[in-house]
Every structure is written in C-alpha cells, then in structure tokens.
C-alpha cells in the first residue's frame, strides 16, 4: 500500500515537491517487474525478472514472478505484488479442488479459462495483475495464454507483460513473428534459440526500464518437466 501524493490536477507529484498536497489512500501499488512467455513446438518458456520495487525504492532483488502451477504449466504475474500473491493462492486452491473432484490435473487451457472467470469475478475491484500462462497443451505443443486484469484472454505463441512489455513486445514481433521483415525464411523456433532470445531481450529491457533488472528467472516447460535457470542482470 502506498499513499500517493496528488496535486490539483490529480497527477502524482514529483519527488521534491513542496507545497499543499492531498494525501489519498490507494488500495493498489505498482511493484514493477516484467514477464515473458514463448511457446515452441514441444516446449514453453516463462521468464521474469526478480526485482520488486515500489516508487523509487527496491524492496527485493530476489522476488521472481513465475509460479509453478502443475507439471505442465507455469504462470507469470506482474503488477501489484499483493494481488499477485493472493491470485496465485486462489489458483492453487482451485487446482486442488479440481484434482480432488475430477481425479486429474488441470490442463493449460482449463487453467486459462478458470483464471479468466476468477479475474472477472472481481470485475468491479480488479486484481491489478498482468498474467501470462505458459505451458503444454493436451497434444504436447507449447501454449501461451495472455490476460488483461479483468480476465480477457487469448492463446498465442509469445507475449510480454509488465513494466517493460511495450519495449519487449515489438522485438518479439520481429524475431519470433517475423513481422516487418520481407523475404525472410520463417524458421521454427528451437529451444536453445528461444532461451538465448529471452536472455538477450531481458538484458535489453534491464538497460532501459528502471523496474526491470537484478536477475532473470527462466522456467522451461517440456514433457520431461519444468527446468529453472537463473541469469544475473544489471543491478542498477
């Protein structure tokens, strides 16, 4: 929670502002962080940075934003950390309930549909979380589901979310979607290339976004299971 300092026009005031201020309680706070997911033919990658910030401060350098849900699904949540924690707790509870009622784990597509309903249940006081689910579908193919804070979702092959999303998404459009390139062969993405691309992309994001940095946590989902890798990033 964070008491925002507002001036007359409703915009947040500068750091060294002196003069009359109106203190207003906001139930939300922005804790930064970037999340990225890429789907391949038989794998999916979910990556996030591990910096937790608030305003001009860094609360923690080791707060990853990817959460393992099942053996075939990982979710990345960025935005307001309080809502991220509660939302992941609720998703875990729903996963358990499903497992107990139906005697099987939820598939990635089912988790995505359930999350959409959970988010829409709070339509009038939303979870301030940008979610991206990465995992394998029933056929073993990679799947990425990206959400907005109130539950609208779509399946795709790649998506960036969080504070540096506007910087990363165009780069992914070019490198994975081959957008704005003419006369180029569309090569399918293999796992090694995808991991290298994710590392490069986060290094770029850490250069230009204050809320992204410290370390990068990569979760690689394959039919063998989930492998985690940590790569250091700029700490400034």
């Amino acid at each position, binding site marked *: 929670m964070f008491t925002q300092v507002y001036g007359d026009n409703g*915009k*947040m005031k500068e750091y060294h502002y002196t003069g009359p201020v109106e203190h207003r*309680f*906001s*139930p*939300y706070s*922005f804790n930064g962080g970037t999340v990225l997911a890429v789907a391949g033919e038989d794998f999916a990658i979910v990556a996030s940075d591990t910096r937790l910030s608030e305003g001009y401060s860094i609360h923690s350098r080791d707060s990853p934003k990817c959460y393992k849900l099942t053996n075939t699904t990982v979710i990345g949540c960025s*935005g307001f950390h309080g809502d991220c924690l509660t939302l992941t707790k*609720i998703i875990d509870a*729903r996963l358990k*309930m499903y497992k107990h009622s139906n005697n099987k784990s939820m598939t990635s597509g089912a988790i995505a549909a359930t999350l*959409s*309903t*959970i*988010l*829409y*249940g*709070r*339509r*009038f*006081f*939303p979870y*301030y979380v*940008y979610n991206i689910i990465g995992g394998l579908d029933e056929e073993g193919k990679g799947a990425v589901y*990206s959400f*907005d*804070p*109130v*539950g*609208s979702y*779509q399946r*795709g092959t790649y998506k960036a979310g969080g*504070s540096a999303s*506007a910087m990363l998404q165009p780069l992914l459009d070019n490198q994975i979607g081959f957008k704005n390139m003419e006369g180029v062969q569309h090569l399918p993405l293999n796992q090694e290339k995808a991991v290298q691309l994710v590392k490069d992309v986060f290094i770029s994001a850490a250069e230009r976004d204050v809320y992204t940095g410290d370390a990068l946590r990569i979760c690689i989902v394959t039919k063998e299971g989930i492998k985690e890798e940590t790569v250091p990033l700029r700490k400034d």
Partner: protein
Amino acid sequence: MALASVLQSESVDFSNYGRQRHGFASGLYEAELGLESVGGDRLSFALSTSCSNEDGPDRKIEFLHGTTTLAFKFQHGVIVAVDSRATAGSYIASQTVKKVIEINPYLLGTMAGGAADCSFWERLLARQCRVYELRNKERISVAAASKLLANMVYQYKGMGLSMGTMVCGWDKTGPGLYYVDSEGNRVCGDLFAVGSGSMYAYGIVDSGLKQKDLTVEEACDLGRRAIYQATYRDAYSGGQVNLYHVHSEGWTRVSQSDVLMLHQQYQAEKA
C-alpha cells in the same frame, strides 16, 4: 446478482469476499479508476480520454472502443466482419484479437467495448442458450438469445460495464441480427457497424448494399472492403479482417485477411 450467483457455483466463498468489499470499493474505485466515464460515451463511441494518465490502474483494462465491427443481412443470410486490434491507451495490446465469439454453431456475437465484458457475458449467453435447448428441445431464436443477453447486462447498468455487441444467427424465421449494448439497448436491424471505425464502414456498406441482390461472394467482398477502409482511416482499428457468413446451416468462417495484404491487393486492382 447474476455474476455472483454464477461464480458461487464454481468456487467456495470467493463471491462473499467480493460482495463485502463492494461497499468499500465502489466509492473509492470510481474515483481512482474513472471507469464510469465510459458509460456516457457509449453510443457516440468517443475514444476514452483517460489515455493521458500514466501507467497504473487507470488504463490497465483493455477497452475495445477502438474497433470496427459490422454485420448486415442480405438475401443469403448475414455477413459478419470485424477487425482484430486491441488497444490499452495508445499502446496496441494485440493485433490478433478474436472479436467474433462463437456462441454455438448457429449463433455469433461480436465484441466491442470491454474485451473481458464481451467474452464473459457472451460465454454466459452460450451456457444459457444450451440450457434453453435442453429444456425446450429446440434451438433458441436470435431474438430470445439477444433478449437473454440484454437482460443479463441490464442488471449491471450504470456500474461501468462496456459492451456493444451484435448477436447474429439464423433461426426458423430466417436470418436474425440484433444490436445489444451495456446501456440496455436492444435493436433489431438489417445493418449495424459498431466502434470507432463504424462511420467509415457504414459509408462503404451503404453504397454497396444499393444493389439488392448480392451473391455470397459479393457480400463477403463488401464486408471485407468496409473493414479494410475503416482500418485505413481509423488509427484504433487494424490487424486482420475476420469474416464470417451465417446461413441456414449455421455459420462458416469465410476468411482471415491481414490488412496489409488487402491493401496491396486493392492497390493492384486499382492499377
């Protein structure tokens, strides 16, 4: 209310959690997030002016006011054409949004306004239509389906839902087309275009529909052209043109064309 009762069936007591918070949240919420400003603009489809706020709760929800969707009836059914762009402020969140929702094999719904609002309520409508089919042993009519949707969202009138949808289908009275929105409007008609690019689309379709007896091919071309022209002039519409045709057997997905490809095609035809 409908929302709470639906969600209660799936979860244990998360709906109570939401309900208690509502009193605390509503006054605060409207001040912080400014969603109610959307309601007044509904029919004129003016672009939301909250784009100017910085990152934060203000502009996080994807609203598809910037969109162009159209549907028109003709001799052989209904043509439904939509663009595929979603914007969050001035950032293009996605160029591949599916703005046509397949309610069931003979009913389609279009999406304009809040993406989550449209997809959630139309998914709920699909469930209600299925229940109707099971109870009455016959398919639901387009008029009844659109009425169910209108009545569901009317309970939330004034609370900030943003939805402008066209329910299109074929029932025993022939082709059906209804415009339903979150303000409570429900109108039957032969032609509707919804969204920021709607005026451009109307121009194309109105001139093309002068010849009464269109073939399926011509009608599809008209719908595609109308959306293309709207994406050309409207900054908030773009991506791909998704085209569906509703006929007596149900709906068929006719085509998905990238606007850039269409541009090159039309330029070549001009030459």
